[in-house]
């Protein structure tokens, strides 16, 4: 403060004006934050890169029942049938045996 006043001719009123401006800016920002709704989960995927602006959710968060639903798979390869598949292991599979 002494240097600002001594070397750069800041008056006490100038310093008070800076303090007031900073306080107002911070208060406005915290008011806005408190009045805003919480972020949506998908907001987490926005803004990592300029392009693409948004990342895609991983398959287990995108409503897909299985990773293979969104990946290429040869016809007839694997026993999984999307939507109506009977588990190959577990209780249901054992009951079907």
């Amino acid at each position: 403060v002494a240097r600002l006043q001594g070397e750069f001719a800041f008056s006490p009123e100038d310093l008070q004006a800076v303090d007031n401006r900073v306080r107002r800016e911070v208060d406005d920002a915290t008011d806005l934050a408190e009045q805003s709704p919480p972020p949506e989960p998908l907001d987490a995927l926005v803004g990592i890169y300029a392009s693409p602006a948004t990342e895609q959710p991983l398959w287990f968060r995108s409503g897909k029942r299985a990773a293979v639903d969104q990946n290429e798979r040869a016809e007839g390869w694997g026993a999984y049938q999307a939507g109506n598949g009977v588990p190959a292991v577990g209780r249901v599979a054992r009951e079907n045996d």
Partner: protein
Amino acid sequence: MPEITYLDAIREALVEEMERDSQVFCIGEDIAAYGGAFKVTEGLASRFGEQRVIDTPISEIGIVGAAAGAAHMGMRPVVEMQFIDFIANAYDMLTNYVATARYRAMLPCPMVVRGPSGGYVRGGPFHSQNPEAGFIHTPGLKVVYPATAQDAKGLLKSAIRDDDCVLFFEHKYLYRRIKGVMPAGDHTVPIGKARIAREGTDLSIITYAATVWKAMEAADQLERDDGLSVEVVDLRSLSPLDDEAIQATTRKTSRVLVVHEDTRTGGIAGEITARINESCFAWLDAPVLRVTAHDVPLPYAPQLEDFVLPQTSDIVSAARSLAAY
């Protein structure tokens, strides 16, 4: 024997090793007078003196460099990163100097770099990272990441006695949440050996650190709701990986889900998947799947952090798709 926390187990390992070997010393930011940001080293300075518990300026690369010099001279330094996120500041010293010292110049570098890691604690992007993948990729460094209090103690004691540099990741979410009874005597856990955290026959979840506990919750739910018998493998060591344990569980269940808190791209799940393909492809009944964090920096807001990091429900849904394959 009373239960102690994961954090106290780490401190107990430090105390026992410093008592056993006068060449062991601790060095880091605020570890002596303050006892460390999480109080892991609390009481060590008064017990062992400030020659063996050394407070440093804020310079991770300087701390690791000083430790490497001491290690070359026969000492056994244990470096604390105040948060493991800051290990990035020592990346050059660790990967270019420490990791290559033995290979380049026959300079032994028996040292440990340890620090609080991981998320689920609303710590934001600079206090929640899981940077292990960057170091697993570096030949010359060993990497361990315990999930239990017993392993935290046993692995740290083994790391301090190891003749190479060991990066010891400790999960801050587990610090005071996880407790265990310490085995009697001089308890060590070998580096490079995984642990079967839960036996199962229908599918395997291979994981480590905090997600071991999420995998265990998921396994309970899958047994209760779906009748699935899930095996959970706690890797404990990430470098070297326990290939034998990975192959054994793959051959046993033929369905493998790899889970980690680290981001997906370049995470160790990709390496594990590749090794399974190379060694056990004929045993697989389904593609190896991954549940990981999204490829984004970790946000502060609870809703966002919960979305980015893998949750128990994610493991359950991925396991169900594996079971249905």
